[in-house]
């Protein structure tokens, strides 16, 4: 079978199975089964496929994924996250679009404590959105910042998706985790500036509130009590990695334990909250690992069918420069992001993108971070950005069209950030460079 035909057969059947609404993990296993029969030698191929399932996921470097998710769920279900947002709310004062700014600042802080974009968005949406709407905030300036900031959770460590991307792409996990800090902060600054500028130009977007002038000490106190101690968890997790004392897996374990201890310290540790956090963690982690268990066979089949090599060779024959090829890969990823989930995007593109990146001599951490940024953006790109539906879940009376429109400016800002990181690689590579 020629490689273009093999590629069409494999990706075509994958897309067909996804389109009829099958859980994506079974679409991947379906293609793996087909590919094992055709390209990996039938019976023996299927046996190989089944053996690959456990070897794909029995990997110590994937340990942070459930634990990072657990940290976020624990913060969320214990109510610590809400308290922290409240504290930020008290601190921020007399700024145009105040509550939207609270969403960005609070969301960025929470991103440093949680590896779950879903928990982040749901938390911000459920705590701040009702208040914003009661005060007559325009939907764009109310929902947009929550959607944008929700995604920052997967850039700033702890980030489960960064761990998975690094593991599948064979990039050093600690480097990619640390590399996410600066881009995450740049996104937050862009959002912050945009909200202040827009609300200053058009105050009707976010009607100002008459806040009683409280002394600074009183405004600062909740921040010192409810936010600063939590940030020490971030210091433990990231500091351990940065100092080279702990692997990401070990740091994640300590972070998870610290989250439980913090909940106990605030007298917010309940059996129900713990069980809820545990079961939500299991649901998300099982979903991620089940898909990851199909990854090894999927990339083997693409390689054995000649599709990987064929596509790479024909790209090489186009004589494009590295800049054009990287831009091309990111555009493909952005396009896929309108329809696919992040895990599927990784499984489909990494077998092609990573060898190409190697061929071009790209810095893997820089390229991996650009991919992660696009994956983050695609959480909010219509029609199938997952966070758009999380938002719909917390704001039931808003139409999807309004949510799409609210996401628009923030997607544009994220693209600006992406271009910055593309043009100035040190923004990404400087911080992880300190590791070595």
């Amino acid at each position: 079978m020629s490689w273009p035909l093999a590629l069409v057969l494999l990706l075509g059947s994958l897309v067909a199975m996804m389109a009829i609404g099958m859980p994506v993990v079974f679409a991947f296993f379906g293609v793996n089964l087909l590919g094992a029969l055709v390209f990996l030698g039938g019976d023996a191929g299927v046996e190989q496929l089944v053996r690959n399932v456990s070897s794909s996921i029995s990997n110590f470097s994937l340990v942070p994924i459930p634990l990072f998710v657990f940290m976020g769920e624990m913060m969320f279900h214990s109510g610590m996250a809400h308290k922290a947002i409240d504290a930020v709310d008290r601190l921020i004062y007399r700024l145009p679009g105040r509550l939207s700014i609270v969403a960005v600042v609070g969301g960025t802080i929470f991103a440093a404590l949680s590896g779950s974009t879903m928990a982040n968005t749901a938390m911000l949406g459920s705590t701040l959105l009702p208040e914003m709407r009661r005060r007559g905030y325009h939907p764009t300036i109310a929902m947009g910042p929550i959607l944008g900031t929700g995604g920052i959770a997967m850039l700033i460590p702890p980030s489960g998706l960064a761990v998975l991307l690094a593991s599948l792409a064979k990039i050093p996990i600690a480097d990619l985790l640390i590399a996410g800090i600066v881009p995450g902060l740049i996104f937050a600054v862009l959002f912050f500036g945009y909200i202040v500028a827009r609300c200053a130009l058009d105050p009707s977007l976010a009607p100002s509130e008459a806040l009683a002038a409280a002394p600074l000490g009183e405004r600062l106190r909740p921040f010192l009590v409810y936010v600063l101690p939590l940030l020490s968890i971030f210091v433990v997790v990231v500091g351990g990695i940065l100092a080279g004392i702990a692997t990401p897996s070990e740091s994640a374990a300590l972070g998870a334990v610290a989250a439980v201890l913090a909940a106990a310290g605030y007298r917010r540790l309940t059996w129900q909250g713990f069980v809820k956090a545990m079961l939500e963690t299991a649901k998300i982690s099982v979903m991620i690992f089940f898909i990851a268990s199909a990854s090894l066979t999927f990339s083997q089949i693409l390689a054995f069918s000649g599709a990987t090599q064929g596509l790479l060779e024909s790209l090489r024959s186009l004589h494009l420069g590295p800049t054009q090829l990287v831009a091309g890969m990111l555009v493909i990823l952005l396009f896929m992001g309108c329809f696919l989930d992040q895990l599927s995007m990784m499984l489909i593109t990494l077998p092609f993108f990573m060898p190409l990146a190697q061929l071009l001599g790209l810095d893997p951490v820089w390229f991996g971070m650009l991919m992660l940024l696009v994956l983050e953006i695609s959480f909010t790109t219509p029609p199938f950005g997952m966070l758009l539906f999380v938002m719909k879940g917390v704001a039931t009376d808003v139409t999807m069209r309004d949510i799409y429109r609210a996401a628009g400016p923030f997607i544009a800002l994220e693209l600006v950030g992406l271009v910055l990181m593309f043009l100035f690689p040190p923004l990404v590579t400087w911080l992880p460079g300190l590791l070595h």
Partner: protein
Amino acid sequence: MVSRAYHALLSAFGWLAGLIAVAIGAGVSLDVLLRTFGGQGIPWMLEASEYGLYLMTFFGAPWALRERAHVSIDIAVEAMPPPARRVAAIVGDALGLVIAAVLAFYALRIAHDSWARGSMIYKELVFPDWWLAALLPLSLALVAIEFGRRLVRIR
């Protein structure tokens, strides 16, 4: 009766998946603390947590399917008229059933071979390979059953 036992089993597996995740966090932390302050860590913790990830995934997989926690892409389905949507659901669940059943069959064969051959895992922990291998056919068989249940409920 059978149905209630089935649901209880799936829920118990979901709990087990969650408990395994928590145990990995606690175990790895304990290992780090012992190593840092006691000088001696737990030598088998690394491989135990690797097995843990596998066990968590496949105890949890049928439960997550019942809870509809496996991500799927419904954009095309939602654009379909109801009759087409029904066909898509039938085809999708039937394919899921077949895929899971075929994989379960192969996984069972592998686990059985391993048991018959008496294969052992020799790392820090030494135990028969089939202790781990036996979970995969069970998990995939339950997944196939869950797809079957979805199939008969489509109206």
